[in-house]
């Protein structure tokens, strides 16, 4: 069995977990083992219903009256109770995925390979994992009868195919007070209507070239017109121009939008690892030789302080013309 933690939100499996299932399925066919999924929380049953298309044979829905809130060690304990006989136990390299698998490793004493990009299911179990958030790769070997790993975000593409629905089984773990010592005891909801940087299809990014907190207004304006989120490089948060939660990069978020518009960002490694999964990058930069140009599909050479407002104005003009034509 290949046992996969599948994270879900409101009954929808998370994208990173579906990427993880694509690797799990590959391992399953290489090792001749069925893929099982484990799901927690409200909506788990709904999310499980759809997993057959991602190669899952059996989906274990964990139910326990004390698991109403996320509790990493308790999730790990449930996984550890389900994993006897499993050849591989894996999760997404998300914050929770890495956390839960680290707890599984700590509880069982097994090593855990974090943020793998590829695994070969042959005898030696060769794997490739990310170092420096993906600026460097490590070829490694993981020994043992049971391997624990997480899958680096956006390293494996989601695979869907027609297949029989997964069998859903309810699992009730044995949990101790110790497993439940650490749990979410409160939440502060996100600002209403704010587009989440992690999920935005279009992201407008600003870096050192923005020059100060006020000039982010023009980036916000463009983002508003595009339905985009605003992100920043590390310089902009270290200087206190923007909150750290907006940071894209090794110590911030890894994003994978359809389009990333990078304004006044030179492209330090720390930032590139956070945005290189974007389908396309449009660079706006004064320096035609900036390292980020090597990542750009499109580029405008110029000062963002004049280029960005010009783009916003042009979008407004085109939209106004379109509306006028529509009325006429």
């Amino acid at each position, binding site marked *: 069995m290949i046992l996969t933690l599948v994270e879900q939100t409101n009954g929808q499996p998370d994208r990173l977990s579906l990427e993880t299932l694509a690797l799990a399925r590959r391992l399953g066919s290489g090792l001749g083992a069925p893929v099982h999924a484990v799901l927690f929380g409200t909506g788990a049953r709904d999310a499980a219903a759809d997993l057959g298309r991602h190669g899952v044979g059996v989906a274990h829905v964990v139910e326990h009256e004390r698991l109403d809130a996320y509790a990493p060690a308790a999730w790990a304990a449930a996984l550890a109770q389900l994993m006897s006989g499993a050849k591989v136990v894996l999760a997404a390299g998300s914050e929770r995925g890495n956390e839960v698998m680290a707890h599984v490793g*700590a509880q069982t004493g097994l090593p855990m390979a974090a943020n793998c990009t590829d695994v070969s299911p042959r005898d030696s179990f060769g794997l490739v994992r990310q170092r420096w958030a993906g600026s460097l790769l490590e070829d490694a070997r993981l020994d043992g009868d049971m391997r624990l790993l997480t899958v680096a975000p956006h390293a494996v593409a989601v695979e869907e195919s027609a297949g029989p629905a997964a069998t859903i089984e309810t699992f009730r773990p044995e949990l101790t007070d110790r497993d439940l010592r650490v749990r979410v005891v409160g939440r502060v909801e996100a600002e209403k209507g704010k587009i989440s940087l992690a999920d935005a299809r279009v992201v407008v990014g600003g870096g050192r070239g923005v020059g100060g907190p006020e000039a982010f207004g023009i980036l916000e304006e463009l983002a508003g017109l595009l339905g985009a989120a605003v992100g920043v490089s590390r310089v902009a948060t270290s200087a206190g121009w923007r909150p750290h939660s907006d940071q894209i990069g090794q110590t911030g978020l890894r994003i994978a939008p359809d389009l990333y518009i990078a304004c006044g960002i030179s492209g330090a490694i720390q930032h590139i690892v956070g945005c290189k999964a974007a389908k396309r990058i449009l660079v706006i930069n004064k320096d035609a030789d900036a390292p980020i140009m090597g990542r750009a599909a499109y580029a405008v050479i110029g000062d963002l302080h004049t280029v960005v407002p010009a783009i916003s104005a*042009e979008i407004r003009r085109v939209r106004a013309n379109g509306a006028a034509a529509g009325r006429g």
Partner: protein
Amino acid sequence: MNILVCVKRVPATGGTIVLTADEQEIDTRYLGFTVSPHEECAVEEAVRIVEARGGTSTVLTLGPAAAEDQLRDALAVGIERGVLLETDGSDWDAVATAGAIVDAVKSQESAAAPFDLLLFGNEAADTGDYQVGIRVAAGLDLPVVIGAKAIEILDGAVRVRREAAGGGWEIYEVPLPAVVAVKEGINLPRYPSVPGRLRARKKEIERMTPERRAGGPEKLRLRLPVEHHQAAEILGSGPDAAPRVVEVLQKLGVIAS
């Protein structure tokens, strides 16, 4: 409060990474060394908590003799004691590292007072294992919260705020002693003062020889990812490029055409 903060010496990679000929390490001949930004913030947080509530702070690292520099960097911003678990400089995996830290914590605690709070960076900048703090907590039977963007010390407990995946915040509250792994953004680390640097230079560093446990995974070699660099399509220079940009946005379906 008696606080321990753990850091790791890593090269300051900056621009391009170059590997050694045997593909086992980063070529650091022309590089400086530092610790992860997460760990700089963990050090700063320890200093602030002790400033606010009294107590003592200790910085610990596992690494080569030269990792003394990173301990002194922490001493220079206000950490009181430094402990070096000295190795030959080869990579220690997360299982081995956590085991050595657990041993050291136990020996430190038997010699002096127990730690109330053990701080880590969320993940090391280089190996990115995301697990040393969690394994140390398990080894010491302590609760552990990761991803901390705010720490509030309560009476006998610690409250931690962490970013939730879909936006917003999660709140955790655990009894002390506890392990907390912090993320950059929790604070803005201070720069060391000149007197701080001088004080740090004179301080005694306590050295211990750690015992290495078997763990995994086993590193075979390092390599640089194959990057698909492309020549960018230049849409123009300055604000005159705006119409071309908007055409591209329409072509990509970002805005209606």
